[in-house]
């Protein structure tokens, strides 16, 4: 149950991350269409609420909320690190490309 919850949180945060302009630039080089961004946000939030429900049902309010908080914090961190890793791998692969990131400094 813990594993399932964590995996779902990872997926949820990945969706939310992809819904940000920043990550879309870094990964795809261009922003995604509005509809796709909306869908990603809704899906990400929905899955997180699903996880909350699952944990509350499994362990009750006290333990459930604590576990939810822990899973989301950790999953956010993992997705964040993955995004950094992917972005820097892409930058290394294309040394000549000017990513929007460096232009904003």
């Amino acid at each position, binding site marked *: 149950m813990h594993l399932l919850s964590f995996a779902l949180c990872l997926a949820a945060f990945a969706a*939310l*991350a992809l819904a940000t302009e920043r990550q879309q630039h870094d990964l795809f080089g261009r922003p995604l269409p509005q509809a796709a961004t909306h869908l990603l946000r809704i899906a990400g939030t929905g899955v997180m609420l699903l996880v909350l429900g699952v944990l509350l049902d499994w362990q009750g309010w006290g333990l459930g909320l*604590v*576990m939810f*908080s822990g899973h989301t914090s950790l999953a956010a961190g993992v997705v964040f690190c993955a995004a950094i890793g992917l972005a820097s791998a892409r930058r290394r692969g294309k040394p000549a490309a000017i990513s929007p990131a460096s232009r904003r400094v």
Partner: protein
Amino acid sequence: MTTDNVKRERAQRPAGRGIRQSMSGLHIWAGLLMGWILYAMFLTGTVSYFKDELSQWMRPELAHQAELPDPALVAQRVADELGAIAPGSPQWSMRLPDGRTNSVYAFWRMAPGEAGAAPGRRAFGEAAFDPTTGGKVTARETLGGDFFYRFHFQFHYMPVLWGRWIAGAAAMFMLVAIVSGVITHKKIFIDFFTFRGGKGQRSWLDAHNALSVFGLPFHAMITYTGLVTLMALYMPWGERTAITTPAERQQLTAELNAFIQPGKPGGQTAPLASVADMVRQAQERWGQDAVGRVTATNSGDSTARVAVARGEAGRVSMSPQYMLFDGPTGRLLETREGVGAAAETRGVLYALHLGRFGDTVTRWLYFLVSLMGTAMVGTGLVMWTVKRRQKLSDPERPHIGFRIVERLNIASIAGLSVAMTAFLWGNRLLPAGMADRGAWEIHLFFAVWALTLAHAVLRPARTAWIEQLWAAAALLALLPVLNAVTTDRPLWHSVAEADWVFAGMDLMCLSLAALHAVLALRTARHRPKPRAVPAKARGGVIGGALEEGRS
């Protein structure tokens, strides 16, 4: 006059832009002034989530327990032993073993007039007992994981009250830093997944922000609940005003813990009834593994009482739940399972801080998010020097404030890792029969920490960082080797026996060694950008500064 104009201007900032900046300033100062203490509190606190496992690892003579012994029998054995070694003690208390401990920790108050209670020290004795025999454990004398735990909220080499006050002050600064940090960074969700790698100051800011934001529920909770655990010390005024009689005091205490006040001993000896039976009754009520603590007052006397308290696992509250028995007869006198609303709130908050209620996964979540919090404090401290270095008029000769922060950072962050690992090395290397062995492990910790401070002062800053990080990596990586050489519980043995406490420790050391090595490599690879053009002429810096002011 110009001074008046400047004063008026500074005194009346436009509200909108002002609050973000004032909160930013507050955040930086609150964080910096207590940062080194907070880092140490955070790291030792993080490690304390596994203090029982650490204590097991530090007493390798005690065999790994594949099965939990029957709590009722254990309680009886230790009760008998305590009756023998502390007869006439007004109060003793034992913590029953659970899946994470393989010894019974007990303490007892010395009988009045008993020799051995040095003036100024608490008049109680403590020891660890073997659950299978009831006798004191024959393992090396060590404070175990409890050293980091106690250091976390009362430090060392000082009266515990001073330590707790310092910890409380630090926690208050942390709370202010969190609130001001949130107000400053109002664009939290927009910037949620932003990270600008390899960009010096911006990278540190983004890392600090990420660690802070992702763990925000935890950091806010752990800080506030930390204050709550010692709130009676920090804010005694309500209690002093309202609680004036002993009866009222007892009423309040009963809301907080399961301690029963020893009454006056009657003078007639009466052996304690079967403690095992009392524990069994509690097990029937709460569950096989749900009994946590057995406390007895005036044991051996006709007025003896025994309280069997519920354990902490599985319930998010530390509010007392216990069954009170008459000592000589074993008759159940009272079952206490509810407290008032405010007391229950306090119980929940206390439990949230200690995190003892969770299963293994939840404990690991606590540990990892707490580690994020530690890194949050560390990145904040380092970021201060990175930012200030840009503004130095002469980078070769920074002012004294900068130098102090820079060197303290090295010793408080990298140096602490070295010192904590040295503590574990001491546990394996100090001779078993050495007098005051437990105290010397602790002296070693502080001696090494002091050495890292000296090293940080004497070496060039960047070199000091790299050398200390590598030292920590090396000590951590070699600890499993040291363990294999000095005990008969090497890693392959522990894995084969499914002894996950020992195996886990070894693996954790290797993981942390890798982490420190990565940090050392990144520090070595990082070259601060050369300042070819004076700051004023570079529009980029001003632009950057404005952008930073906005965020």
